[in-house]
């Protein structure tokens, strides 16, 4: 009977229906639901549709396309740098960006400040049941755009859906692989007295943007997140100043926390000139009102570099020559004593010790 049908020259009505189904199967997967359901994480049809219709569509590249359990990457003689970071920002969308470009730029920057050329990312999504699919599409689109901008490929991924109330909408984890083709290793122990401390631009913009975007404060300010990929800016710096000792992107805990880590790890004093630290007026104003110190506020597109003192001016000029480093500044010097401390020369003409925060910066009541 089957053989008969295949051999039949004119399609029967049954055959027409079967063909239509076959064509539909071959058509591009499209996510038609408006909200994420537990089925999207169950590994069946819905998961497949989500992966093919949304993720593969956005991140399309030859290493991702086979959708095998692992992506196969070409090996070179260079050292590899591997990093991972999870993104749980709230709100998911904010002026200047969203969790998607944050998840790409953050991991790209961790690779970049290690001195590596970022190449491949993984993307793991933890979605809350009921999360709007259009929001997910928007996040994935901005991840894809950020990946293109940073020249990296998302080569593997994972999706899980948890019950409503067990997560806050959407969490993303990205791991990143970069190639370290420079001979150096950039680490705090290389820092020594006489070195200069640079920051690649005005600080605190991301953190203040998030605080204001949560809408709990009745403060309005013209600020946007500084989220950006820093690999080009870092490469420019490294090409100009071979005496770069260390770079760190100034995320959680801000510039103050990084400097404390440097001071302790290298056993040096870090002396910062408050007046030289670049802070935009809107950020400064918001921080002043909230009783928060911008030195502790997170950035997502700025890094701190410690460079050989003799190369400080050249390094600064190199940073300022790049659009993402226009606001770069020389903010301080490394001293020998007292070891392990970060000292701030205040604009007022005094000095104080800049300590590591115990927890989140909290607004003061008076």
């Amino acid at each position, binding site marked *: 009977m089957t053989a008969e049908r295949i051999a039949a020259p004119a399609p029967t009505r049954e055959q027409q229906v079967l063909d239509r189904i076959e064509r539909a199967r071959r058509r591009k997967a499209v996510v038609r639901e408006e909200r994420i359901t537990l089925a999207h994480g169950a590994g069946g049809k819905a998961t497949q549709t989500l992966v093919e219709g949304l993720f593969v569509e956005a991140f399309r590249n030859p290493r991702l396309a086979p959708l095998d359990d692992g992506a196969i990457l070409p090996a070179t003689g260079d050292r590899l740098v591997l990093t991972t970071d999870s993104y749980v920002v709230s709100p998911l969308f904010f002026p200047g960006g969203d969790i998607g470009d944050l998840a790409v730029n953050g991991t790209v920057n961790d690779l970049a400040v290690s001195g590596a050329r970022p190449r491949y990312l993984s993307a793991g999504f933890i979605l809350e049941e009921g999360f709007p699919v259009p929001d997910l599409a928007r996040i994935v689109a901005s991840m894809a755009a950020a990946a293109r901008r940073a020249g990296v490929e998302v080569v593997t991924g994972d999706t899980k859906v948890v019950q409503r109330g067990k997560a806050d909408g959407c969490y993303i984890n990205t791991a990143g692989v970069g190639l370290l083709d420079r001979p150096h290793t950039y680490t705090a122990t290389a820092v020594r007295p006489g070195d200069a401390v640079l920051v690649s631009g005005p600080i605190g913009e991301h953190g203040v943007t998030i605080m204001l975007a949560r809408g709990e404060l009745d403060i309005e300010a013209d600020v946007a997140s500084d989220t950006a990929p820093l690999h080009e800016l870092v490469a420019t710096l490294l090409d100009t100043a071979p005496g770069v000792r260390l770079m760190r992107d100034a995320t959680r805990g801000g510039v103050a926390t990084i400097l404390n880590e440097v001071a302790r790890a290298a056993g040096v004093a870090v002396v910062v000139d408050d007046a030289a630290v670049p802070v935009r007026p809107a950020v400064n104003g918001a921080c002043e009102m909230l009783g928060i110190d911008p030195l502790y506020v997170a950035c997502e597109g700025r890094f701190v570099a410690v460079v050989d003192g003799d190369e400080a001016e050249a390094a600064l000029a190199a940073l300022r020559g790049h659009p993402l480093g226009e606001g770069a500044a020389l903010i301080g010097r490394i*001293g020998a004593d007292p070891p392990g401390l970060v000292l701030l020369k205040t604009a007022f003409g005094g000095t104080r010790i800049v*300590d590591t925060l115990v927890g989140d910066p909290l607004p*003061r009541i008076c």
Partner: protein
Amino acid sequence: MRFVDEYRDAEKAQALATQIAALCEPGRQYKFMEVCGGHTHTIYKHGLEDYLPESVQLVHGPGCPVCVIPMGRVDDAIAIAQRPDVIMTTFGDMMRVPGGNGSFFDAKAAGADIRMVYSPLDALKIARQNPDRRVVFMGIGFETTAPSTAMTVLRAAAEGLGNFSVFCNHVTIIPAIKAILDSPDLRLDGFLGPGHVSTVIGCRPYEFIARDYGKPLVCAGFEPLDILQSVYLLLKQLADGRCEVENQYTRVVPWDGNLRALDAIGRVMRLRPYFEWRGLGFINDSALQMRDEYATFDAERIFAIPGVRVADPKSCQCGEVLKGVLKPWECKVFGTACTPETPIGTCMVSSEGACAAYYNFGRFSRSRVKEATRV
């Protein structure tokens, strides 16, 4: 920033520093207490002590409103917050203050619904949005914040909002200053008066300090130049042989205070017979509670609170440190039972408290720090 940078001018500071140094009698030591935690913050943030001669010492006073809340009251607040129908709302810096059994942060992690707000009016907003929950505002602070709590209660009453209440822990500044003045071993030469509190209560309530206790007081603003100028005015009084209440913060503080704010406090709250202060013990008439007319907004009457009493350990000597009798390291429990992670007394609770600052940085002398910044 306009109206801020003018008061942070390093050149003017240098000129004031020269005048301050010129007023100091050789060989004499001066100890002035800045009563308010906001002043401590400014002094610390701008490194103001670098402008003062070694012979002028600033003693951090009891005016950090979250630090003086006794452990038992924190435990009571947590007991309220742990009720499933309650949303507890509080100012941010209250979150870390430890009670006898953990802080708000710990209680939140254990499941209590505790939310940070920036104004009691935000708590009112939460109450409107959650009609099926009972929203409690943790009222803390001196006369600075009490008016906003009182105004919020008045508004809640006007709106007939039945699910909003205040756990009132507001304290008053004068009895605390008096407790310090009454100490027989007091070693203070004068006071920097609390500017924010004074915008509400004015300068008149301080007059007894100069008249009865012979200590000058200068009501001071919160920018670094304000504080330097106030130190100058105190030294000038001592040099001239005067002892008065002066107002340096005239751009904000009226001599008679803010009558409307005082009226709001008076309508909603009355003095408690006594209240416990962390580090200072029980002080008569030193705090506010809700009036009977507003009993339905009084969390203490709405909820059966345990009324926890956690006595400060007898060995805690915050009182002596506050009065300038003891240096932090001379306290019996300093650095052993009392550390920044497990603070016992008020001086260790806030990172700007005298003991916490000494614990973290005492090993570095100011001269060593100053030397290092000359790189």
